[in-house]
């Protein structure tokens, strides 16, 4: 055999070195998520989809809690026949994950029996279990909201003493912290209660369509399945409502392009009764619909609309102008529902025979049954709950900063959640003993070092995968959630060698071809830089970004698949979109002229 044909290989985990100068920052992660020699036997890939940037020590909790819950659901709760859970490791701030496939036919058979007793029960009772899920989830959110902000009075309040409470406020700190953390781990269990089953039912239909119509695009299948009145559209709907309100109350002139949130709020408050009434409307929209954050919710700095109104406010002038012109429409739910119905019927007609049509009917109805969860859970889990969680941790940061532990509350995110508990106990002890806490002398240099480490890690490329390449990737969880197949690995291996330097490739998310000026938007702060007709180039896209789709001609993202929110919204707006490019924000220059071919997933750099 020709030696040239031998595929290149990914490096072994043991050969990946911690970047010089960051060793102590690396050592902060607990022992069980550090790579070890035995990990060389296994295939790992970099989870750039969920964790595209180096993670701070605290944010690691998202990986820990999520894989803990995902594995429990797969391995022990629903007993997926061919896969167990997912192991994760962190090196240089990057999260690597590896699935545990079940390959022994006897074991698969044994698990299949269990799976059908469990998963099939879920499918059969989906609506009632999902209704119960929503109740549980809303309760969990209420519980999280009820957790008080941590504080330490100088003296225990007199009413506590007279009530014979018997425990002091420093104990409340620990309880509050542990409840906060417990709630986050619990939320992730809820997150995965239905997820794999939901994706599985969707992929069953997806796989059937690909077999029946080999050249059908992913986005067409997605359009057949996508929900019409899913929660992800609500934040944008609320903005349209608020814009219309502003026009009716004649306060829309206060939303001047370029004005800060503070300016706008101040001038609305000074605008008498109409201003007051609009602010009341704003308040009803904010809870809960502004609890969406500007990223996927996996990083503490993905702040919500509620935390930073600049994102939603940036969209209001455009909507208000449309409303003034009588052109602002609500999402045409009926039309979208009709279109989806017609699409399903038209493809059905093309099937070869009635047997296939009967199977198609069963699969699409199961996909429609599970999809409200697949689309809806993110708002409750990754957005609303995650937001409450990080903000609660931030309030611990503020308390510790006030006690001299940190220069700023945000520094708290450079401690792991284990270390944060130690710092809290340090403060509890100092409060009780009357001594000075040790933290103010201990943590600041460590925070400085870790901040520098993250900046350093971000400057280095990390391998897309590590370890021996499996012959086939048959792990449904990996295929479903990350879209990784043997083909994508081969592409990674050949990346760099053959790619055209004037091209960026990704998932074809929404068809159409346009040319225009690229505007790189890395955070919500930069939203205001978008001019009418620009092409949005961003790292992640999610419901938060929906309102700016009225301004842009096309969207390109580093992360996301054909079912990502950006893809769904782009299709609704009829804008070309290419998602999951991996590196569009670094390869495309701000202001550069580009061509987006959303039907083929290709972005061409024109200058």
């Amino acid at each position, binding site marked *: 055999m020709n030696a040239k044909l031998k595929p290149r290989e990914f490096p072994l985990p043991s050969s990946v070195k911690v970047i010089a100068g960051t060793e102590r920052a690396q050592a902060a992660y607990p022992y069980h998520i550090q790579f070890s020699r035995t990990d060389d036997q296994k295939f790992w890939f970099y989870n750039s989809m969920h964790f595209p940037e180096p993670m701070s020590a605290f944010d690691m909790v998202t990986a820990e809690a999520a894989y803990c819950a995902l594995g429990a659901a797969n391995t022990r709760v629903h007993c*997926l*026949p*061919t896969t167990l859970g997912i192991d994760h490791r962190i090196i240089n701030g990057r999260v690597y994950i590896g699935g545990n496939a*079940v390959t022994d036919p006897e074991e*698969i058979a044994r698990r*299949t029996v269990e*799976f*059908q007793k469990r*998963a*099939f029960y879920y*499918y*059969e009772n989906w609506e009632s279990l999902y209704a119960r899920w929503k109740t549980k989830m809303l309760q969990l959110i209420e519980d999280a909201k009820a957790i008080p902000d941590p504080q330490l009075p100088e003296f225990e309040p007199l009413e506590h003493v007279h009530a014979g409470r018997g425990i002091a406020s420093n104990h409340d700190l620990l309880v509050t912290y542990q409840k906060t953390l417990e709630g986050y781990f619990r939320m992730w269990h809820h997150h995965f209660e239905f997820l794999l*089953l939901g994706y*599985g*039912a969707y*992929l*069953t239909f997806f*796989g*059937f369509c690909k*077999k*029946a*119509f*080999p*050249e*059908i*695009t992913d*986005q*067409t299948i997605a359009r057949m399945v996508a929900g019409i009145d899913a929660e992800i559209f609500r934040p944008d709907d609320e903005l349209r409502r608020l814009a219309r309100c502003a026009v009716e109350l004649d306060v829309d002139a206060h939303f001047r392009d370029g004005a800060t949130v503070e300016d706008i709020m101040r001038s609305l408050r000074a605008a008498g009764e109409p201003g007051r009434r609009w602010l009341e409307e704003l308040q009803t929209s904010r809870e809960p619909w502004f609890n969406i954050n500007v990223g996927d919710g996996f990083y503490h700095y993905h702040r919500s609309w509620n935390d930073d109104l600049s994102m939603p406010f940036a969209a209001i002038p455009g909507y208000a102008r449309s409303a003034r012109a009588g052109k602002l429409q609500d999402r045409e739910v009926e039309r979208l529902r009709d279109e989806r119905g017609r*699409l399903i019927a*038209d*493809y059905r007609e*093309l*099937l*070869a*025979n009635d*047997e*296939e049509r*009967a*199977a*198609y*009917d*069963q*699969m699409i*109805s*199961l996909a429609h049954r599970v999809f409200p969860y697949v689309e809806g859970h993110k708002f409750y889990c990754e957005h609303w709950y995650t937001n409450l969680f990080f903000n609660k941790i931030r309030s611990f940061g503020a308390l510790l900063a006030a006690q001299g532990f940190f220069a700023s509350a945000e520094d708290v995110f450079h401690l792991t959640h284990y270390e944060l508990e130690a710092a809290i106990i340090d403060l509890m002890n100092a409060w009780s003993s009357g001594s000075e806490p040790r933290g103010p002398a201990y943590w600041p240099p460590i925070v400085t070092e870790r901040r520098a480490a993250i900046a350093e890690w971000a400057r280095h490329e990390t391998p897309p995968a590590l370890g021996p390449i499996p012959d086939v990737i*048959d792990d*449904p969880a990996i295929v*479903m959630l990350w879209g990784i197949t043997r083909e994508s690995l081969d592409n990674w291996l050949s990346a760099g060698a053959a790619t055209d330097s004037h091209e960026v490739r990704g998932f074809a998310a929404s*068809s159409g071809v346009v040319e225009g000026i690229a505007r790189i938007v890395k955070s919500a702060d930069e939203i205001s830089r978008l001019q009418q007709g620009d092409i949005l180039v961003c790292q992640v896209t999610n419901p938060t970004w929906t309102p700016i789709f009225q301004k842009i001609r096309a969207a390109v993202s580093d992360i996301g698949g054909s079912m990502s929110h950006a893809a769904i919204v782009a299709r609704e707006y009829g804008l070309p979109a290419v998602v999951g490019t991996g590196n569009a924000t670094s390869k495309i220059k701000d202001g550069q002229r580009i061509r987006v071919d959303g*039907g*083929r997933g290709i972005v061409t750099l024109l200058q």
Partner: protein
Amino acid sequence: MPVPKYISWFRDIGLDDRPRVGGKGGSLGELQRAGINVPPGFVVRTEAFADVIDPLERYSPLRSRIEALAADDLQMIGAVSRELRARIEDAPLPADLKLEIRDAYARLGGLAAPPAVAVRSSATTEDAADASFAGLQDTYLWVTQADSLLHKIRSCWASLYSLESLSYRLRHGIAESTAAMAVVVQTMVDARTAGVMFTRSPLSGDRSVITIEAAWGLGSALVGGEVTPDRWVVAKITGEISVRDISDKAIRHAQSPAGGVEQLAVEESLRREPCLSDQELDSLRAIARQIERHYGRPQDIEWAIDRHTQQILLLQSRPETVWSNKDSQTAAIAQASDPLQHVMRIFGGRR
């Protein structure tokens, strides 16, 4: 005007008339009935063929002679073919037939000068879904005079006895008594762009896409393989265009002032330009869907866009055969079952 004995206008015929108007003629009539734009024309029915052949048969039997040939004796088949073709080309035409053809041809032109027409053979065995051997019989383009038309009609009849046609019938055991030939006479389209489309992917058999191939000028350059066509793959339902291969189209076919077809160089500025607009692609998609629905099965379709009116005209449509034959040999990709068992395709590890 008495009911013509030998000819039928497209609007008056359909697929059921195939025994008398041939596959091509029946299909064109059917398309026009379905409301599809086809260039106007008529069919010289098989009765005309019979009235010319039968005297020859009586004089010296030709059908039994053909059936006696060995299917692999190409030399002998060739000799018989030459002889029969010459006899048919020289055979006299009944006077009333000549009159009907001249009259129909004149009416095709209306008040204007007699039009340029395509003269196409339309065999009763051709274009049947189970025996697609299109192209075995002759087609003559840009015929502009009545005398020439009469001559080409005889040439079409004669092509039923070409070496290829004879050996095809012998190989497939098709009885000579069933082989008859009608002739389609159809107004030529002075095409800006012409091409073919398949309502099923030739590559994957996918029924949900339409593959469209097209080049500048008359379709003969593309069909004859003299130019690499532009190629698009369009989603049948949504209209999404997933493939756009625009090729360098160096030449085009056009009507020659001297009659017939001539080859011209394509203007430099047009060579690498798409020869169809997205709007035209979408119109073709709508037409393809309509035809496919009408016939209830995937089709291969030839079409052209008139240079002067920019109108899309359908030249012919026949059933797709390659993938349809494969289909009949393969089982359904899935069947209804316990609805939940479907998910085991994903979770069961049996993919």
